[in-house]
Structure formats: C-alpha cells, structure tokens
C-alpha cells in the first residue's frame, strides 16, 4: 500500500529543524561577506554561492555542512595557481576569522558556531558553465558544475511534481539506518542514483520502489566484479560521482539495495494496511507511521 499520509508525516519528520536552518543561514552569510570584502580576497573574488544538499533542499535532520563556492579570477595554468597553493592561501585568509579551519581535499572547512562550512574555491571553465575545482590529492584542477547540480535537482523536482527532493530525503534516512558504515554511500552518490531512477512516481511509496529496483537493475550487474561503474553527475555528465567509491563498499550497498527493493515491493503490493506498514518500517524504522 502507498500509505501516503504515513509517508508525508515521515518526510516532514526528516526536515532539518528551524533553528538549524537559521544558524546555517547566519553562518554562510557571514563568511560570504568576509570573502567579498577581505583585503586579501576582494581582488580575486567574483561571486559566492551556496551549493550542496543544503542549497538543493535535500538535507535532512541536522544540517551537517553547508557548501559555499567562492569563484575566483584565477589563471589555473599559471605558476602559483596549483590547487594546493590556492587552498592554502584561502585557509590563510579564513584563519583570520575562524579559530578552527581545516584543509580538505577540495575545500577549506571552517567551524562557525556549530555549523560546519566547506569553502570551495573555483574558477569558471567558461561563462556560467562548469567550474575548475582544486583537487589536492590529484594535484590538479578538476571540473565540477555546482550550478548545474542545483538546476538538475530543481528541474527533476519540477518534473516529478516535488517527489524528487522528498525521495532523496527518504533514501538518505533509509541509508542512515543501514547496519554497516561500509554500505552507506556518500549523500551525493545517493542523490544521483535517485535522480537516475526515480521515474515519474505518483506516490512516495512508488518513488522508493522505483529507486531501489532501478538501482538494482542498473547496477546489480557490477556487483562482485571488483569494479565500480561510472555514475554520471546530473550536473555535469563527464564527472563520475562514484570516483572514490570503493568496490567493496559499492558491493555492500548493492546487497542492501537488493534486499530493500524486495521489501519495498512487498510493502507496496501488500493489501493489508498493517502488513504494509510493518514492511515499510523495516526500511524506515519504527517512527514510520507511528
């Protein structure tokens, strides 16, 4: 059964609470203003914008981090524009304002009163197109298209009558309950998989079934092959969101998907309400339909 009311209530219980939203807003506005006006960054700064699940409205519960992209006027071919140099320079600037700054692979993390912000420097590949983003480990500038990700998500959400964003939240909540860390994919991988498989659902229940069965039929083939397939970023098809996914983790996730797909199908097909709810609870926990 589709148990629409149960799903609606469950999704809203996943929403980040108002306080978290307020704190996050304050924090990102502050750092964006600092980057715009700071003596060391104001010449390089072109614009900042929000990205990540917070921006795409796919965050759940606590907002764990907020991604801020800072577009710089950089010649990435020039000496001094090596990813590591640019990231360290940015960290030096942020050190002036924050007591906790942390160099990360493609960004500088800062802790701002309970909110973790990731500041990602970037420079456009072409006007309004993808960005070059520094990759410290690869020692290279790599392409990413945060604005493309935002518009891909919002278009998908429009096309699915609003089910997309809510299904991402459902799937994240399901993922967070998986028994092993190994089987839990990164949020953006999961979001991409939902994007690829959601179809045109008519209810939350059908969306979840579409996604789980879709992942299983598209990627089940790769399970146990020791390789992780290329999973194209909906924001920029040449980027592989699964690039850092280990094959053991991929396999563990696909095992979970296979089992969950069968449970979800049974739950949807069940004609008895109590029976159906019991099965959905296997996926979403005891608060579902409570």
């Amino acid at each position, binding site marked *: 059964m589709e148990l629409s009311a149960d799903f609606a209530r469950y999704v809203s219980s996943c929403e980040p609470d108002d306080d978290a939203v307020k704190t996050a807003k304050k924090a990102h506005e502050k750092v964006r203003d600092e980057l715009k006006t700071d003596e*060391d*960054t104001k*010449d*390089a700064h072109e614009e900042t914008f929000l990205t990540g699940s917070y921006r795409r409205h796919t965050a759940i519960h606590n907002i764990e981090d907020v991604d801020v992209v800072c577009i*710089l*006027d*950089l*010649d990435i*071919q*020039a*000496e*001094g*524009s090596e990813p*590591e*140099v*640019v990231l*360290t*320079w940015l*960290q*030096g600037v942020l*050190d002036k304002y924050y007591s906790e700054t942390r*160099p990360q692979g493609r960004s500088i993390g800062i802790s701002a009163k309970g909110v973790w912000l990731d500041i990602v420097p970037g420079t456009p*590949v072409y006007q309004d197109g993808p960005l070059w983003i520094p990759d410290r480990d690869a020692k290279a500038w*790599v*392409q990413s298209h945060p604005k493309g990700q935002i518009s891909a998500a919002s278009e998908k959400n429009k096309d699915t009558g609003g089910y997309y964003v809510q299904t991402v939240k459902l799937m994240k909540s399901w993922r967070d309950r998986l028994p092993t860390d190994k089987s839990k994919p990164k949020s953006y991988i999961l979001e991409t998989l939902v994007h690829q498989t959601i179809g045109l659902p008519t209810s939350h229940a059908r969306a979840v079934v579409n996604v789980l069965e879709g992942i299983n039929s598209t990627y089940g083939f790769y399970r146990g092959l020791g390789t992780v*397939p*290329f999973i*194209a970023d909906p924001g920029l*098809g*040449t980027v*592989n969101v699964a*690039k850092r996914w280990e094959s053991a983790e991929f396999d563990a996730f696909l095992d979970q998907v296979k089992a969950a797909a069968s449970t979800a199908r049974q739950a949807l097909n069940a004609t008895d309400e109590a029976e159906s709810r019991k099965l959905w609870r296997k996926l979403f926990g005891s608060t579902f339909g409570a």
Partner: protein
Amino acid sequence: MSDQRSMIRDAMQAIAQRKPGKSKLVYDKTKRTIVAVSEGVPTPQALNITADDADMFGVVTLSSGWLRDKWLSLTKAGSLPVDFSSWDDGDALTQLELCIQGSGTRAAAMLVLGQPQGQTTEGVVISIVPTDKPAHRSDVFVSPDNIAYRAELVEPAATAGRQREVVFADIEPQLDLRRAGILETTVLKDRTVLCIGLGTGGAHVAVELAKSGVGHFILVDRDRLSVGNVVRHPGGISQVGRAKVNVTRDLILEKNPGAQVEVHVIGVGFENRDVIAGLVQASDLVICGTDNRQSKLLINELCVSANKSAVYGGAFRRAYGGQILRVRPKLSPCQQCFVSSLPDEASDVEVSSQDDADAIAYSDRPVAVEPGLSLDVLPIATQLAKLAMLELLADKSSTLNVLKRDFDAPWYLWLNRPEPGTQYADMPPLSDSSDEMTINRWYGIYFERDEQCPVCGDFLSGIAAAYGLDATQLPALPEKE
C-alpha cells in the same frame, strides 16, 4: 623561479602550522595567480604564456620554450638568427622549431634584444623590448630572469606597411588545454602503443592517438607509400616513395611534437618473430592494422603469451563494412578463437595491396586488390582508436571511461552499405528500421572464448577429451617464450 617556489612553500608551511613566516601568500590580480611575497623583495613575474584563439591572421609565432633555452646566448650576443616557415595565405611566419615538416617557404630572421641599430638591409628583424603588459598574454614573453618582453617586427621597407603581431607559443600546455578534463593526458603520455600495419586504417589510428596525447609509438610496416595509396592514406602525394612508418611518424609529430616515435621498416612474418616479440613486450597495447590473416595470428600469439591487449581492425571487401576485434589475453576470445569460428576463406577481407593479395590467396585463386573509399575506412579507424584509448585508460579515471559500459563486447561489426551479393544486401533503409541491422551502425557481438584454443586456452586437455585420453599422460607442449 626557484626562489618564488621556495617562498611559496615557506608561506604554505607557515599557514599550515599557524605560525607567522617570512613569506605570505597573496593574490596577484595582473597575473591572476597566487604569489609569495616577503617584505622588501619585489614580486617576481610568473612564467606562463598562454595563447587563445586570437585572430591569427598575419601573426609571427615564436616558440617560447626555444627562446627560454636560447636566452643566455641572446643576452650575450645581442642578436640571434632564427628561421621561419613563411606561408603566404595570411603572411603567417611560424618558427621552424614548431614545424615538423618544415614546409612553406623558408624565411630567415634576426632576433634583436632592444631596438635594432642602424640600417636593416634584408630579411625580417624581430626586436625584443621590455613591456608592462600582463605576463599571461600570448604576446608577452617572460624571460628566465622574470622580465616581461614583447616583440615587434621590423620588416624590410618593401614588404612593410601593416602591423603584425608576434606571439609566443608554449606548445605542451596549449595542446593539453583542449584535452584537459576529458583525458588523463599524464597517463597517456607514459603509454607505448605498438602499431603494426600503417595503411589507411593503421595510420589514422596512430594519428588519432597522437592527438589524444599518447606519448610513445612503435611503428611497424614494410611498405612504402604509393600514388595509389594517397586517396585514402593520411600521407599525401609529396610523401610518395617514403616508408609508411616514416610518413606516419611525421604525421604523429605534427600533432604531438613531444611524442617519441620508433620506426621499423619490416614485415610481420615468422622470420621476424623475435623482433616483433620484443616490440610487443615493450608496448602497453598493440594495434594491428595488417590485412592478412597469417600476420594477425602471429601477432595474436605473441600478444597472448606476453599478456598484452591488442586491437585488430579491418575493412570488408570494397569496404562495405568492417570489423574490430579486441583481445584481452585470457579474458576475452583471442584472434585464434575468432578465426577458428569462421570459414577459412578470404572473400570477406578487404585487400588493399598486391603483396597482401598474393599472401592471402589460401585457395590458390587470384585475389584482386579491392577499392574502398577513405570515407568508409575512417569510421573503422576512429572506432578502433576509441577502443584503444579505453584499453590505455584501463583503471584510470577519465571521462572516456563512461564508454566502458557501451564497449564491452569482444567483436564489433560495422555496416556501411548494403553491398549486393552479401548477406546484408537486403538491409532496410536507415530511416524506417527500428531494431533491424542497418547501415552506418556498429554492432557489438559477444562470443565465447574457446577453452581449448591452441593459443589462449588449454589445448592439451581439449585433445585429450576429444580422443578419450588421460591428459596427464600426454607429452607436454614445447614451452612458449
């Protein structure tokens, strides 16, 4: 340079340890990069020149790498001779060091540091003077001692009259720019491809791989370019009579001047078995564009025993289509497995030279040299090059790897026209077919490895099974090298 590098490192360390250092990282707006500065020391110039697609009409192009190398001689002597290729379709002058073939008319010139002294009598004079323009522009050269210069053309009175721009080219970074984000050029630069057979298909594949950034080539072909080849081969009429390996080497270098190309004017036969085996061993991937089955089988044997992947391509007669076989030793069917499953006749093989026609006539009947358009052979070469790239990029991250899912069959068939007299004569028109075989399409075909293949399988146990013998009682096959 090294000073700036170490200052950047100092500053990075200071930031990482949150301790003040001697140097600080700051953004430099003119150079659009990060530089390290310390008090009292002037900011050094970044050494980077990029050209964009500016209007290249009438420009003079100088290699900045060459000029950096020669800088000391120029500053000592005050002037330096330099040779150009001159092209009259835009009055472009391209420094000979940038031209592999050195075509065009040769034009001599003199580089002069500062304004030229006295009367300039003949030839072109290029005067190099300091400039305030930002260093990243293509018309600015930054010397090893970090001073920005621009160059100005002082032409003899007769040809003067129009301002020409002098630009500097840093070849490698500019070539890489268009591949960045699509290909791991750093991986491909280290890869060695052995190309055997440099007819139309083989030569095109080699040139495509050079354009994609493959860094090392070993070329093998015994033939010379003939007039009859020219309509299909990328080599042109001015190359007739040269060995195809040399023609192809120059085409490769025109596209990828940094490539290393080794050439061998030899045929593929049992007399050269050891030489070819050595070349296979030295390569990461073998591309086989030879026409005859015997040489393919020999190459197959050498590749399987050396555990090297190989890609085999060829056109059907009159190039009405073609096929590609990709062999990953022990993982996919090999050329021998493939041939064993086909009738042993030459009728469906395109034969492009009389030598091959003679070699291929297993049935003792004469085989004609088959015509085919370059247009029909090129799609096969392009597909072959793509498969080759996927092999070279195996396990590496690359945008091209999205193709792995599409290209996982061992055998690809290309149909180019419904040739009368073939099984494809009645193919439906492209427009009204949905799931039938049509022209202009590739078909991936799966077939099984022959477990008892004499090359890649367990031949002995196959024989034993066929004759009801105990395999352990059979004498061992001679060791393969």
